[in-house]
């Protein structure tokens, strides 16, 4: 496959993901938030996964190996997302995090075992054309494992962010930009579930086109959510007029606003 528009797009995604990762590492250091550090690693994995998909595009000899590499990195991203969800939405509170990590790790081990079985039994790294061949069956099972894990992990992240959004949406201090960011995080989860479902469908140009649009939309939302330009934040906050009036007040002025019986 010649260097085409998809390769240029993927290379752009790779660069942007690296920039976002660096931005997250800086923000994590400044704010002391583990979630942002993990987001940085997620963006590093995004860039690695994107590079792998470029290899898949060019690779016709060891197609099965690079596809397995892609599924492996996608599961690692899901595992990192579960750490992010735990630290962001369940900080020091009970969550199904440990069970999900266990399930994800088991899924990852099964993917690698199926890959090894297929290459040992066929004696080849090449994906067999026969749909009933061992490598083809194992390759299909691996995609189903990735889809099931995506439903589980992204579904959990969607629920956690929705619950958190419902907690904060009534607070007058929450600006439009923060609410929009929550919605973007939820939309990303839905797009990831759609991506995994599409990957299970048979090959067609239409599927590839839709898949590319969905993956790109998901990535653009990630960029806007975590590296938002100032104009977007300003636009999202356009209806927020309530400022903190206590800023600039003296201690006496603040205490005079209280309606309690002084001791």
């Amino acid at each position, binding site marked *: 496959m010649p260097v085409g528009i998809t390769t240029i797009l993927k290379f752009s995604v790779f660069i942007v993901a690296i920039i976002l990762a660096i931005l997250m590492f800086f923000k994590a250091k400044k704010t002391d938030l583990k*979630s*942002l550090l993990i987001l940085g690693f997620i963006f590093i994995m995004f860039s690695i996964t994107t590079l792998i998909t470029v290899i898949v595009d060019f690779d016709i000899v060891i197609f099965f190996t690079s596809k397995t590499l892609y599924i492996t990195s996608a599961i690692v991203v899901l595992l990192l997302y579960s750490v992010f969800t735990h630290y962001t939405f369940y900080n020091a509170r009970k969550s199904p995090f440990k069970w999900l990590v266990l399930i994800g790790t088991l899924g990852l081990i099964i993917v690698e075992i199926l890959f090894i079985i297929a290459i040992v039994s066929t004696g080849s790294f090449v994906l067999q054309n026969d749909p009933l061949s061992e490598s083809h069956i194992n390759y299909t099972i691996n995609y189903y494992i990735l889809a099931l894990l995506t439903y589980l992990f992204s579904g959990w992240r969607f629920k956690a962010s929705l619950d958190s959004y419902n907690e904060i949406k009534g607070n007058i201090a929450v600006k439009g930009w923060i609410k929009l960011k929550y919605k973007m995080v939820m939309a990303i989860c839905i797009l990831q579930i759609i991506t995994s479902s599409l990957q299970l469908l048979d090959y067609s140009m239409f599927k590839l086109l839709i898949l590319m649009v969905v993956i790109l939309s998901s990535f653009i939302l990630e960029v806007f959510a975590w590296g938002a330009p100032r104009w977007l934040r300003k636009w999202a906050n356009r209806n927020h007029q309530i400022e903190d009036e*206590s*800023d600039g007040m003296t201690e006496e002025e603040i205490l005079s606003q209280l309606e309690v019986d002084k001791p």
Partner: protein
Amino acid sequence: MNIVQFFGHVLSEKIGQKAIACSGIIRLSIKDSNKDPETITANELKEVFENSLLERLQRIGFDNANEVSNYMTSQLMKNHAIFVMNA
């Protein structure tokens, strides 16, 4: 987003006082701990709720200052995501 105003609103709903007064008390408590209200981290605010806010509430004369302090800490843990979203 203003974190002080966010938790001021939470405190206001808990103790039934004006939001402006509650934001002010949190702001003063943060300053008592020699922190900057604009750049305070989640861990620092937790310390403020457990110590200087509790002391302030006791000084003002709230009977249930301990309960309010614990409530604010639990709300901080529950709404931790707001710090991530605000970063």
